[in-house]
């Protein structure tokens, strides 16, 4: 069961990663006319249309992470400590705290992105998106590294 939840957690994280990355790129490198290239199309996506999906995916991914977290504490963290793998252990500790800080930013993120977009909040929107993108990328990469070191039931 825990493996199924871990896989769903990873799939949600991939979806969230794609959404927040698209939004961050379109915020910092906007392209207003329709582009033909792959990169151009990424830059020209309507950033505001991702907001609700990102909030829901962030909450769902974090909730599922919280559900499987006890298994990590019992089966994985102990092994990391026994093997003195301090860096991966520390990376995960940071992930835990970064994700929590991101949760507190979600109401502000949602509000400042709601339509119609206020020009006064353009910088706030851009930075909130960037911080969330950093948190999501950090969490995804750390989760991937730890799963490679010791995935559940290995």
């Amino acid at each position, binding site marked *: 069961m825990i493996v199924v939840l871990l896989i769903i957690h990873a799939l949600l994280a991939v979806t969230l990663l794609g959404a927040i990355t698209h939004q961050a790129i379109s915020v910092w490198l906007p392209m207003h006319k329709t582009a033909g290239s792959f990169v151009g199309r990424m830059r020209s996506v309507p950033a505001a249309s991702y907001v609700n999906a990102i909030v829901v995916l962030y909450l769902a991914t974090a909730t599922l992470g*919280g559900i499987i*977290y*006890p*298994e990590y*504490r*019992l089966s994985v*963290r*102990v092994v990391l400590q026994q093997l003195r793998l*301090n*860096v991966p*252990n*520390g*990376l995960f*500790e*940071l992930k*835990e*705290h*970064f994700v*929590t*800080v*991101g*949760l*507190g*930013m979600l*109401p*502000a993120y*949602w*509000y*400042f992105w709601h339509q119609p977009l206020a020009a*006064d*909040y353009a*910088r*706030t929107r851009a*930075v*909130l998106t960037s*911080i969330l993108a950093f*948190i999501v990328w950090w969490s995804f990469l750390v989760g991937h590294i730890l799963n490679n070191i010791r995935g559940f039931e290995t």
Partner: protein
Amino acid sequence: MNISRSFPVFATVFAVVWAVMYVIAVEKNYALFTYHPALEEFAFLVEKPKEGPAMYWYGWMATSGIVALVAGLLACSIPERAKQRVWAGWSWTIPLGVIFVFGYLLRGFFTR
């Protein structure tokens, strides 16, 4: 109280207080409850590990969430003129600062 005018103040104060309260809760271990994963038991406030580790993360979030919610709701009741002077940028500067604080607090994992 005009909800559409109050929400940006609520959201900004919530983000600030959540982040600050969370780092305080982690540092001082102000967990509203403790979870013992090996026993699958919850306990009110902070308890020492019994069999296996004790998890405080959920309790830290609960503490931060309650304090941030109360602070955000209180901020909604400030006068309209004061609401307009609440800088939206606090919603990212303080959380970003807390991210750096955690990097500093946990530096021991990367230096030993």
